[in-house]
């Protein structure tokens, strides 16, 4: 099991995750985190909650390939990716990416790279619940464009 990846229904603690990234790691001076949360609004619709479905097995494989790519491109130390599945309410945390490095640019770039490819390659799907009922979220062309820039 890849300790760098966790797919879970439970919430996570930013502080605990960063503490683990930093523990016994005095060589990395930089830590960059990304946290994604459920927004209250999407395309003008008031979202009340969402459900996250995923393709178990492929999710872990695709994320671990993305992490390997990031480690090839930048000089980074530790990496952690958490993605929640199941039912989530407004404001809840969905995704966490944490990266440590000696020099800050590596952690910034690798973190954004991981998020950009997670967005277009990791098999997760969101179904939103709003006053208008339930609907599957459409993928954004801008996410594809952004991933292709790397």
């Amino acid at each position, binding site marked *: 099991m890849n300790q760098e990846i966790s797919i879970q229904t439970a919430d996570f603690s930013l502080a605990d995750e960063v503490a683990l990234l930093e523990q016994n790691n005095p060589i990395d001076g930089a830590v960059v985190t990304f946290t994604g949360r459920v927004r209250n609004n999407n395309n003008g619709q008031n979202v009340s909650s969402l459900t996250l479905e995923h393709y178990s*097995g*492929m999710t872990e494989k*695709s994320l671990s390939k993305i992490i390997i790519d990031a480690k090839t491109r930048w000089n980074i130390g530790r990496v952690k990716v958490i993605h929640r599945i199941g039912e989530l309410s407004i404001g809840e945390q969905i995704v966490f990416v944490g990266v440590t490095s000696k020099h800050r640019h590596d952690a910034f770039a690798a973190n954004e790279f991981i998020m950009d490819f997670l967005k*277009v*390659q990791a*098999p997760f*799907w*969101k179904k939103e619940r709003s006053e208008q009922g339930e609907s*599957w979220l459409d*993928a954004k062309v801008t996410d594809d464009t952004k991933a292709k820039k790397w």
Partner: protein
Amino acid sequence: MIKVVFFAALREQLACSELMVSSENITTVADLKHQLANKNEQWQSLFNNSSLLSAVNHDMVDNDQAIKSGDEVAFFPPVTGG
């Protein structure tokens, strides 16, 4: 046999999450899609949708990817995680 799995909107539209398909006459993902599309008009329109994504044994692949008996093939809409 080939194990075929569907996710998200596609799974709901097909009202099916998993299917076993004979590997006879199927050598690529395109062959499999073609066979699934032949089931009825609804399946035809769903499997002819060019935005549909495919994975074989948990790796994202193109239509010309070779497949064989024992493989797990997945079809799903563009992903929306993160």
